[in-house]
């Protein structure tokens, strides 16, 4: 273990790799949440009905799902 740690220490900036990874994810996730929250509610409702055919009389109970 030690011998690997020694070898890894030789890579410039190795200690930042995991931090960069987490940081990339965090930024990505925050942007994603903001964008998703901005989607129009009616549109979202429309998307969620895509699996249904025109003839389907599916349940569209607004109290049942939040979308």
């Amino acid at each position: 273990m030690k011998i690997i740690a020694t070898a890894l220490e030789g890579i410039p900036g190795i200690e930042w790799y995991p931090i960069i990874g987490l940081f990339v994810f965090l930024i990505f996730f925050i942007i994603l949440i903001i964008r998703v929250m901005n989607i129009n509610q009616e549109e979202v409702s429309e998307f969620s009905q895509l699996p249904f055919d025109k003839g389907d009389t599916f349940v569209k109970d607004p109290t049942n799902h939040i979308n």
Partner: protein
Amino acid sequence: MELQKFTYDNKIARLFMNATILWGIVGMLVGLTIALELVFPLMSGGVSWLSFGRLRPLHTNAVIFAFVGNGMFTGIYYAAPRLLKTPMFSELLGKIHFWGWQLIIVAAALTLPFGFTVGKEYAELEWPIDIAIALIWVVFGINLIMTTVKRRTKHIYVAIWFFIATFVTVAVLHIVNSINLPVSFLKSYPIYAGIQDALVQWWYGHNAVAFFLTTPYLGLMYYFIPKAANRPVYSYKLSIIHFWALIFLYIWAGPHHLLYTALPDWAQALGVVFSVMLIAPSWGGMINGLLTLRGAWDKVRESPVLKMFVVAVTAYGMATFEGPMLSLKSVNALSHFTDWTIAHVHIGALGWNGMMTFGMLYWLMPRLYKTQLFSTKLANVHFWLATTGMLFFAIPLYFAGFTQSLMWKEFTADGYLKYPNFIETVTQVIPMYYIRVLGGTMYITGVILMIYNLIKTAKSGTFVPTEDDEAPALEAQPVHVDKGHRILEGKPLLFTLLALGAILIGGIVEFVPMFMIKSNVPTISSVKPYTPLELEGRDIYIRDGCYTCHSQMVRPFRSEVERYGDYSKAGETVYDHPFQFGSKRTGPDLSREGVVGGPMHKPNSWHYNHFLSPQKMVAESIMPPFPWIINNDLDYSSIAKKISVMKTLGVPYPEGFENQAKDHLLKQANEIAQGLRNEGIDVADTKEVIALIAYIQRLGVDIHKTDGSSAFTTK
């Protein structure tokens, strides 16, 4: 708006449906066979291709790639055209995909039992089959993405995103992990070695679970649960968030398969952190699936389809909670190498994949044949058999796992291992293996009932080869101002590239440091390449799937060091193409087997007799006999080529050694065989067992060397 008429092709969905049923029962029966072999070790009757080590890879490959693979394609070829309001891009590509995939499965069934294997779990298939998989996968991908491009819906439904992510990621995983250098038509060595090979393999292995067993089935969940419950998905916004979070996080989690191994600590820590974070998106999916049924639970009581889906999604939730828990180092220290892992994966396979597939088939068959399900009662019986069978399978294995681990780690008051003899920890869990067989039998009985039910259903109706539909052309639909996530959803190619980017980031962050250190890899000066005879022996070890029951990785725990010897170092495996750490200890770890004076060492004659009859040497052993290794002549015709390939891969054999390899092999074989003959064992120099003994006796030797002697100096 003018409506365009088009038709959906049910024929291709039916082909995949039949294939998933056929391969499902085959894969499960092979699983039952190997479960029986663990309680009746002589069952294989000395037939090589029926032995546990050869059939276990067949079971895993058949269930993952044949049963679940065809299951996902059934769902995709049925759902994607309907969600995108267009026929699949090309019927011809669909047919090539179907027949190509079945041919690959047949090729796997014809090679794995006969020992043609790379020796990396879930990636055992040899290089020509790997190439075929890559080509057929690309055919599938083109067909899927072009169908998305040709769609008549503005929005691409969430299920399709999961299908696209599946295509992209599996392509990357498969190609990166399968880069091998061929020795012959059905023999190759991976270009990676030791700890690097392990990292690549478990990056692949873990994400095969993520992107072959999870994401496509989440896609199916998002289509079939709303259809079967007749209500839209609970939260569409949640589906967007959980999709991106899931694919981004999953790819980092692979190193949790290598905790406490010689993998660097930072990589292990990375694997743990991302595995724990994975609970959030996984449970986001589970909650979304289950809450879609909110207000429809009365239907669940009546519908076997919905019952199956509920158990599937619940099992998904259980497995994805357990997975992160197993990734915690303290829990993993207990669970790894035990039956706990087997229980965990079967909650996923039998519960999540199995039940989703069954539910989908019960829903689909009556629709494809325009009829009613033949027997709801029979389907309910199947449901209970599958659910209880799964519990009878998994719960005993949890107990077996705890028992093994605690027994391996228990010390007496005087500081000695309480169960120093490994076999004690095996016999203790045999009753659990019997109950596992019962659980598996119940589960398969349910599948047989399903097959009967589905055949009767099909016979009671008439197949509908195509279905008509109509929708306005995409261009004719009103243009919304795209904002937020919608920009992505309207551009499938950009979407595909972003999904690719998300999954590549994790892989690159993990791999780059590992491969950058290749030039200064922590080589241990006493660790030398295998001799030609040992290399041949190692190939026999791989061929017969020894890694399916024996690990070669002593973790740095006192209990393991006491039992096996010094803990494993990364530098020991730098010439191991492929690595053979293993993932399960049905038998003991072998990495210190050759250390004379170590706790594991046995003489050559013991190994010879043990391969001939394990029960003769250890009465309660559940290892099968390997008479073919005793009887077969060693085929060393390609040893020069093997040495050459190893040299190309960077193994430092001396210049021109490939030309001396045969003589070296024969000389070492003669020394071992002569030793056995001196002990009264009548054996020829060039039997396979001699090579295997040479390999086994080499394990762990190098790091204990103090005299600096070379492996190439035979005594």
